[in-house]
């Protein structure tokens, strides 16, 4: 069994701000991390490897420094890693990104058994690239996966839907996106780190994966960002100290609830 996991390096979004004067992103000094949801996807792949024996290949698309997340994936137990990096990919929206990644997956393996993604990346929050890749690969799509079992080429997964859990079955290959209700990601072992540090990470560009220029980066992106701006700041309303007079605080809450038509 061959499992491909796609991971993204993201800024720790807690610290991303907008410069109010220039309306541009201030990303300086913001720490980069592996997208938390992708860690769950990787963990599912590694669990399947532990249980059934599988080759796990991890792909990341991003700038050269995204190599770090691939080393981390190797340290945790991934067998092979590839960094998809090219200036031609710059400015890609979810369509152009899905295309580039699907081209890379096809080069890694024309017939992988499973392709796993995190539910979404915490910087863009779109949750669109996993489904987009399933379309380019023409594989069935299963989203919001919280557990995976495999038997004789047939998978049974639990998916977390809005109102409960759906248990879904299908034949491999498939593209799946994994939620955080899945297992807690393992830590990398020390020996894993030593090994991962030494490994040379292959870098593929648009030409290497046979991606046509018109479908990459800005050129291949139907969506255009018109402007970015700081969110309207909601300023706090009235404040009360409820430590001395909790009764008054309760009355204030009740009054507000009644004004809004509840209670």
């Amino acid at each position, binding site marked *: 069994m061959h499992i491909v996991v796609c991971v993204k390096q993201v800024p720790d979004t807690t610290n991303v701000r907008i410069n109010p004067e220039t309306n541009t992103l201030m990303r300086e000094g913001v720490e980069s991390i592996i997208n*938390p949801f992708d860690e769950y996807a990787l963990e599912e792949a590694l669990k399947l490897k532990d249980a059934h024996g599988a080759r796990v290949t991890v792909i990341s698309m991003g700038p050269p420094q995204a190599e770090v997340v691939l080393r981390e994936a190797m340290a945790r137990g991934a067998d092979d890693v590839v960094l998809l990096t090219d200036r031609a990919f710059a400015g890609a929206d979810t369509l152009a990104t899905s295309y580039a990644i699907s081209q890379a997956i096809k080069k890694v393996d024309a017939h992988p058994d499973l392709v796993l993604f995190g539910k979404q990346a915490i910087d863009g*929050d779109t949750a*669109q690239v996993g489904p987009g890749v399933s379309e380019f690969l023409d594989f069935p799509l299963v989203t919001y996966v919280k557990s995976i079992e495999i038997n004789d080429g047939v998978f049974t997964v639990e998916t977390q839907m809005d109102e409960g859990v759906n248990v879904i079955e299908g034949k491999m290959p498939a593209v799946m996106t994994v939620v955080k209700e899945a297992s807690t990601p393992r830590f990398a072992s020390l020996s894993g780190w030593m090994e991962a540090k030494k490994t040379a990470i292959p870098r593929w560009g648009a030409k290497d994966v046979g991606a046509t220029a018109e479908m990459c980066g800005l050129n291949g992106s139907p*969506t255009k960002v018109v402007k970015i701006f700081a969110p309207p700041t909601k300023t706090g309303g009235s404040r009360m100290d409820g430590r001395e007079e909790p009764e008054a605080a309760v009355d204030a809450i*009740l009054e507000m609830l009644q004004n809004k038509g509840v209670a």
Partner: protein
Amino acid sequence: MADAPIFIDPAKCRGCKKCITACPFGALYMEGKLATLKPEECRACNACVKACPFKAISSTAQAEAKKSSLDDFKGIWVFAEQHQGKVQEVAYELLSTGRRLAKDRGCELAAVVLGHNVADSASHLIAAGADKVYVVDQPELAEYEANVYTDALNQLIAKYKPEAILAGATAVGRAFFAKVAVRSRTGLTADCTALSIDKESHLLHQTRPAFGGNIMATIMTPNHRPQMATVRPKVFKMSPPDPKRKGETLMEALKLVAAGTKIVRVERNASNVNIAEAEIIVAGGRGMKKAENLELLRKLADLLGGVVGVSRACVDAGWISASHQVGQTGKTVCPKIYLAFGISGAIQHLEGMRGSDTIIAVNNDPNASIFGIADLGIVGDLFEILPMLIEAVESKRKS
């Protein structure tokens, strides 16, 4: 390199730099006394075309030719997601916003229903604002399956060419819309919080949060159709239905692909409420101290007809299931009333609930960031205030 979407006539350019100020993307610069384009930065927004006092900048022939084929796409659609024949509320919310957009665009508003035994829903959708309802009523569509749904919607798009399509950013909408957009090779903007028709370009302007809500971006899809967007439940308000509204229902029979997967079991337990659909949320955080104390939240939620929400800390501590989590890694909610007890307000949590109409927060830390966005902020001990509040609501009910 892409064909330049704009042309700057050197004979007409006087070097006034107005276009440079107007360009939102920094795609123009001065080469000597001549405005010059960096084509790779240009997003064809035509802001410079309008800004130039000398009519030196024009949209190029390629851009114009493409535009005319785009004109074949007409009308705005709302995907009306249904479960067991019941249309989800978010579809009605989208229809009320869709009405406004259709009016601004001067076009028709249609709803699309995919399912089995769902024909009854058409009259409700018309009452909610649809001029037309496309219904695909077939057994293969009884339960959502990504491949089959994608195929069905794409066939309708190819046949009727809508200019824009909206869906709720639900588990279903977010997943299969992404496939539909790729199959149509068009753009999709997820989780929009504002939608409008731009007066000049007539394009759909789609505004959404990114980077954990620290940044808002307005996005458009200038050269591809349909323009696609998802919107979270409760972001837009539903307008009251008008049963007298007239509309047309079109039944479509489609030949659909085989399903890629099948649902073998659906587990819905009572506690698995969908907090994203709730009008009232009584939420607790780390300050609740232990699992048993969440009972207080449940009690108040039951009294008010609401549901319990929590911050990530409560889920990580194992006090309650993740389906109750509000925030970036949980659910984004926009209820009428959000009561926050013992929630300090980490940015990831605020991102998930800042859209609430009214926020009431109780916290013992006067510096808690939740107070920064609360309409009513009370510094105090929740274990004192919450039981008193429950009692007060109870006695109010009795009287």
